[in-house]
Each structure stands twice: as C-alpha cells, then as structure tokens.
C-alpha cells in the first residue's frame, strides 16, 4: 500500500500537537519582520502516527534480520541503551548548566574517555566529534597542529587504496594533499611502498586496521616506524575496532591518533544514517592538541576546562553527541571485559562465513580474516550475474545485502560483516541463502536480474534521479 507524502494529507486547521494554554497577551511584531509561516500540512495525531508507522514498515533494521553490511558493524542495538538515554535528568539537561548541576553528565564523559583510552591503548581522548568523519577531521587537525607546533607545515598525507573515502576527504578538508599508497599482493600494506612515499613534507599516514578487506595490517609496526622516523604521525581509522577489542593495543603498535565509531563498535543506534559519535584517542604527547572544552576530574569534582592553548579548538557547538556517548557508556558497562569476547565472536563469525562460502564465491584473499570477509562476483560474472544481482536477491531471502563494490581495490566486491550478535543458526541461514543464490546464478540468471521481488519497490532508477534531481515536494 502506498502512503501519500505528508503534504498530500491533512486539512487546514487540524491539530496534531497539544498547544500549551496561552497565559500572556500577544506582543506586537513589526510587519517588516513577520512572515506568513511555513506551508506545513495540518494533521491529527493519528494521521502522524499512521504515516510514520507505515513508513517504518518499509524499512529493514537490525531487529528485522541479519544486516551483514561490511565495514558498518551492524550489531544489535541494545534496548536498555534507549532507556538510559531517555532518563529525564540526561535527556532534559541543558549543555550550559553550571558544573554543580551537571556532575552526572561530566562524570559519565570523564569515565567514558578513560574506557575508550583503555580499549584503544591511546589514553588521551576527546568525545567531541559528532561522527567518524568528524573524528577523522579532528585527527587531521591534530596532525596539522602538531606539525605547526614543531614549526613545520607539512602538505601531504599518505592514504592506502583500501581506505574509506572519508579518509582522503577529511585530509583534503584540512588542506592536505592525499597521496595514495598501493597495497601489496596479499591485500596489506608493504613497508617498502610506504618508505618510498614518506618524506618530511608528509604529515603522516592514515591506516584502517584491520583494513577494508577485513585483513590485519601485519606490517603496521614497520610502517609506523618508517613514518615516525620522518617525523610523521600515524592515524588509525578505528572503523573496524570491532575486530580488535582486547586483541590489539593500538598505542603499543605505533598508532598516534585513532577515532572510533561508537555506532559501530559500541552498539549505538544507526538511526538510518546517524547520529553517530566519533571520539578521538591519542598518545599522551598529542594530548595538548585535543579539542576544548576538556572534561577533567578535579579532586571529587568534574569540570569543563577551556585552557589548552595548543588545542585545535572546537568541532561541535557543545561537547559532541552526548546521548550517543551515553549509550556507548551503557554498552561498555554492560560488557566490561566481555568486549573482548565480542571481538572474538565477531571474528569467529566472519571466518565461519568465509570458510562456508568460499566454495560458492571467489575469495580474492584466502587467508584468515578479521571481522569481515570480502568475496567477488568473479564466478557469477561468467553467467552474467553481478554483485548487484546477488545483493538484491538476498532481500528476497529476508536479509539485508552486504556492502557491495567496496573496497574499490577488489572488482565486484561483496563485503560481509556478520558481527558477534548473530547466532550460528542465523549465520547458517545466511550461508544457505547465499548458496541458493550461487546455484540460481547458474540455473536462472534472469531470476536474479529481476530481483528483488518482495519489497515495496523494485530496483529504482538512480540515474534518472541524479540527472533530474527532484529533492523536494
């Protein structure tokens, strides 16, 4: 069934919101400033409830089924986190309350900083970035500020070909030129490739580890040494931290700056694309450059401190996405050391899928993976079935498709990240569906071209959408 657009519904004068009683007189307003008010539709409460109930039913979420979207870590978003975020004391708190009236929030932020420092091995932490990409930007700002403080202005940053697109974009936003580094035949960085490019005009390197092929960068220590020797810094993109909690101490292996995506590793809701949170963890040496205000503990009192003269400044109006931080805090307190178990199960699940599916799908790098594995459509291409067809067909089996055509270094990539939340039964069902699709590719390629059959709409014309953009109604 269709659901009309909001403005195709309603009737002028209808009410959907309970307006508080008027208890003061109307104040005059200069005509030159007054407008007509926006042309919003007037709906009843039930109109609004039904509209969004129906829209929601066309969406697939983690609660709807397995969502193996590689590099997005679509783990279970615990319901208790929502309960905590809605406690009136937190949900209703003004950010500029005096310290005496915000100790709970400050303590939470202070302790969360400590936990994230412990998990990454990089003890100085800012919670301010509103998302991973803003965390990257903050990291690049720190790179720039660090070199500036040394009296240098370096112009380049090394970025491997397996990086997320945000890495070069974040570097560019910060005025750096992104210099590509090719990964080696095993899908990981070779120290010699880095040594060749690293120079004293290069601010450092951005590495995703495990990388976007789901592989651990074995040469990370050597790479870090090369970069450090030339006075550069090592940025670790923590998007894939879900593979490594309690497994790797990133501070120890030479990473200087690292952001985390709390909506990935720390289970905060994905929300159809946000809000996320992208805390940045750094070495003690880089501590002075973190954004302000900083949350510090002063005796028994928690305080916000602005006085860090080397700080890069502010990236958020207030302190970042507090209620997302709060959810991550709840998650960490709920698991404690079991976070390591989460990483272990995540890796177990990915390897299990890899082993079970490699007879059906081409596995470009056949070696133990971390939390995700990357296949390609090479075998299916012979039957004119592409990654896109496989992805769409999965919808008909009740699964969200994996990430496709990423990383770019692999042609026709199918990037599967199950996360630790999925049980063996669910994995087996997914493996079974993928197996059926592989058979169907042989027997009935057109069935795959015609998929999906069951969702609300079928394949959409994205080209037309971009050619003649219709962005509002």
């Amino acid at each position, binding site marked *: 069934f269709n659901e009309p657009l909001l403005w195709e519904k309603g009737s002028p004068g*209808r*009410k959907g919101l309970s307006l508080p009683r008027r208890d003061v007189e109307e104040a005059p307003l200069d005509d030159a400033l007054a407008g007509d008010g926006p042309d*919003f539709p007037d709906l009843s409460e039930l109109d609004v409830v039904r509209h969004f109930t129906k829209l929601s039913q066309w969406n697939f979420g983690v609660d709807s089924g397995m969502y193996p979207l590689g590099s997005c870590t679509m783990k279970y978003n615990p319901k208790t986190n929502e309960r905590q975020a809605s406690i009136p004391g937190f949900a209703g708190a*003004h950010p500029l309350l005096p310290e005496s009236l915000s100790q709970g929030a400050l303590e939470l932020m202070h302790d969360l900083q400590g936990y994230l420092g412990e998990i990454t091995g990089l003890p100085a932490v800012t919670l301010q970035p509103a998302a991973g990409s803003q965390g990257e930007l903050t990291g690049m700002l720190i790179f720039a500020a660090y070199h500036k403080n040394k009296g240098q202005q370096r112009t380049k940053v090394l970025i491997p070909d397996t990086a997320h697109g945000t890495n070069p974009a974040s570097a560019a*936003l910060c005025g750096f030129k992104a210099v590509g580094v090719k990964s080696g035949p095993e899908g990981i960085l070779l120290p010699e490739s880095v040594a060749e490019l690293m120079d004293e005009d290069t601010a450092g390197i951005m590495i995703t580890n495990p990388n976007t092929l789901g592989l651990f960068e074995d040469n990370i220590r050597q790479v870090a040494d090369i970069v450090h020797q030339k006075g550069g810094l090592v940025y670790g993109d923590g998007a894939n931290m879900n593979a490594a909690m309690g497994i790797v*101490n990133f501070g120890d292996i030479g990473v200087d700056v690292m952001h985390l995506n709390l909506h990935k590793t720390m289970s905060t809701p994905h*929300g159809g694309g946000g809000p996320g949170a992208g805390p940045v963890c750094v070495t003690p040496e880089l501590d002075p450059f973190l954004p302000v205000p900083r949350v510090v503990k002063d005796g028994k009192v928690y305080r916000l401190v602005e006085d860090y003269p080397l700080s890069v400044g502010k990236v958020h109006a207030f302190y970042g996405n*507090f209620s997302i931080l709060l959810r991550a805090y709840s998650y960490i307190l709920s698991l404690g*050391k079991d976070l390591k178990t989460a990483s272990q199960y995540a890796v177990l699940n990915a390897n299990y899928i890899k082993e079970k599916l490699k007879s059906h799908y081409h596995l470009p790098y056949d070696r133990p993976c971390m939390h995700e594995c990357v296949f390609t459509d090479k075998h299916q291409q012979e039957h004119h079935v592409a990654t896109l067809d496989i992805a769409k067909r999965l919808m008909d089996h009740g699964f969200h498709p994996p990430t496709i055509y990423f990383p770019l270094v692999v042609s026709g990539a199918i990037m599967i990240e199950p996360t630790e939340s999925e049980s063996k039964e669910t994995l087996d069902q997914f493996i079974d569906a993928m197996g059926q699709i592989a058979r169907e590719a042989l027997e009935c390629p057109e069935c795959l071209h015609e998929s999906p059959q069951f969702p609300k709409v079928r394949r959409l014309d994205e080209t037309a959408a971009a050619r003649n953009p219709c962005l509002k109604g």
Partner: protein
Amino acid sequence: MRYLPHTEEDIQQMLQVVGATDLEALFSSIPDDCRRKDEMNLPEPLTEWELNGHMDCMAASMGAPPFYKVFMGAGSYHHYIPEITRQLLLRSEFFTAYTPYQPEISQGTLQTIYEYQTLVCRLLGMDVANASMYDGASGLAEALLMTIRATRRKKVAVSRAVHPMYRKVVETYFAPTGFEVVELPVGADGRTDLSGLSDLGELAGVALQSPNFFGCIEDLETAGKVIHADKKTLFVTAFSEPLAYGLLKSPGACGADIACGEGQSFGIPQSFGGPGLGMFAANQKYVRTMPGRLIGKTTDRDGKTGFVLTLATREQHIRREKATSNICSNQGLCATAATMYMASLGGTGIRELSRLNRDRAEYLKASLAKAGHTSPFSAPTFNEFVVRFPDGFADTWQALLEKKIVAGLHLAPYYPELSDCWLMCVTETISKTAIDALVKEVAK
C-alpha cells in the same frame, strides 16, 4: 552475556569449520608483537538492573526540567516533545537501520528524509535542503566553506552576534585552510552592523544569525540587499532557534543564498548539547556544491514512485578528496524526529507555538523592565533577550540555583563588553506563573 549468543557447543562447531583450536587461535595470523598481552582494565560487567540504578543515580545529579526551571537558551532550547515522537522513534525499523544504501528496503527512511528536506525548504523558504549536517555549528562552517567553493574567493565575514561557539567551530574548520574569517561588529541595537562591509574587500560569503545569539531579530531583508551589493557574495543566514520561522519572514524571502542552523528545537531532547540537527538549505543553483547527503524522488522498474540517495558524485565515497565535504552520514534519527515534530505541529500549530514562545519571552522582558532590569539592546527579539543586571546579580543567580531556578546565561565569558548582562530565554514550557516567580525573586 545476553548480547553474545554463542554457546560452548556453537563455538566448538564453528572453530572446527574455521580450523582453529580455540578463540585465541583465530588471531594467530596477527604478528605476536602486535598482540595485546594484558587484559583491558575495565569494570566488571553490570547487570541490566545495576546499570539502571547506576544511570538513574548519575542522572539525578543533573539540574534538568521539570525539577529545575531553566531560563537559558543560547542554542539549546527546552521545548515539549510529543510522546508520539518518542514512541515512533523507538520503532526499530527506523532506529536500527543504517544509511539507506539499498533503497528497495529503505523506503521508510528515504521517504521520511525526503519529507524532511521538503519541510525544511518550506520553513526556510529555500529551494533545496540536504538530509542534515551534524549540528548548527559545523553546518555554518560547511556553509562558509561552500561559499568559498562557489565563489573561488578566500575570505568570509561572520557577525559577532552569531553564536560564539558556532564561531569557534568556524575558526577550527578554517584554521588549516588558509582562508580568512573576519568578524562583523554588533550595533547598539543588538543587530549586526554592516556599515563597514564594503571595506572588507572581496567576500565569498557573509553570515548573520537571526534571531541572533542575543535573541535579536536581524533585519535580514535589508542585510541581504547590502550584502548582495557585491553580486558574487553569498548571503548565509544561520539560526539556533528554527521555531522563530513560524512567525518571522523566511531567510529565502530575505534573499539568503544559504540558510543553515540548529534544529534541536524540533522534537529533539537537549541531551546536554547533543546530538543536534544541522539544518542546511540553499538556492537551487548551488545544489552541486552543497555538502551532505541528498534524497531524491525517482521510479522503479514498474514505474512506481520511490526514493533514493542521489547526487552522490559530490560525496566522499565517490569523489574521495574532491568531495564537497567529508561528511558521509546525516543526523538520520534527529531528522526523523524533526519531521515528525513538524508534521505534528502543522502550519497552524507552528504559528501559534512560535507566537506563544515570543509572547511569553516578551512578558518576562517587560516584567523585568518594570522591575528596573532593562536590555542593552533595542532590536525586537524572539524567545530570548539580553538583560543588564546590577552588581551582585551573580550572587543572586547562584542563590536561585538553590531554589531550582537557572536565571539565564551570564554573558561575561563570551562577551567581555557585556559582563553585567545575562541572556534570558523563555519557551512554551515555562508558564506565566514560573515567569512571575522568577521576576519576584529577581526583584527582591
């Protein structure tokens, strides 16, 4: 642990398939010198019930409504949030979905955000709106960077009456770029003084906030004309209180090229400052230099209407370092909340609510004036305003905390020239009775 499904038996079966002897062996391919040897030093896991107790206890220390009357806005506003918004947002199809990369099974998110874009355009009188930015502050920074991309000029001007924290974020974003940010002064009436604009040379963009940080409604229409005296310069209008546009002339109607600001007022809890919602809209001609995600309407194979992410060629996963911004998500759930809120309010409701906010604030302003506490500024204001208090008010302010009243924001740290001033805010959540109580205390 209830989030970790594997039983010992499951693990053994799976390890066998994988060919590993135990869970540790899964990581044997990682070089030994990269393996963490110590355990993470984290607290014992809490049960669901211990966590509830712990969080309730921490939250109890916060000075939040309804226990406190908070007469403070300054970019974070306490508005009522309908229960339907809270419950609809908890529908897991919305809150556990990711970026709608697969449109066939994401039409809920996509139609909602398309509706969001449309309502934002209608609110601000603009042609196109994106699917949202992180918050008002970074939105303004991105808007100013956009004026530089659009004009290929190297300098922007920002009013000193723009939220001071937004200006700090702009500074941070601009610091490594080499582009220049100049500040426009505030006039005696509390509005931006544009008289020196023509002396500033070639400007990519000029940013004003309205209502500005002092609550003053800028004369955007006149400002637009002054700014557009240089035809290439883009007029950027910011805001921290979108509810004002239920009553005020829209930025689009006043000639804005880009309108951006914070949407927290629309159904999003204050949550100690985040997450917010960066509303961001522009004229049609700038659509391809806009940052952020966009949703467009299209059709499927059977000709049925549907919605997709579009114009992704501007974005970082395609254009990488040449992207219009590094932002690769939006504030999806916050934008959804705002859509629900705008839908609930309706055109009739937003007008009434907007007026009530202003009228209550005007009532406080008048009452304080009667008690001898006047504003240094004469410009009309929306739901907040600056008031000058006599010496010793800082102590009164502190004493009022004991009575569970937060009597505005002291401006000293942000505007040394206004060190005896406080920024007061009143929304629909503060009744006349509560206003009268404040005035009585202050008049003591």
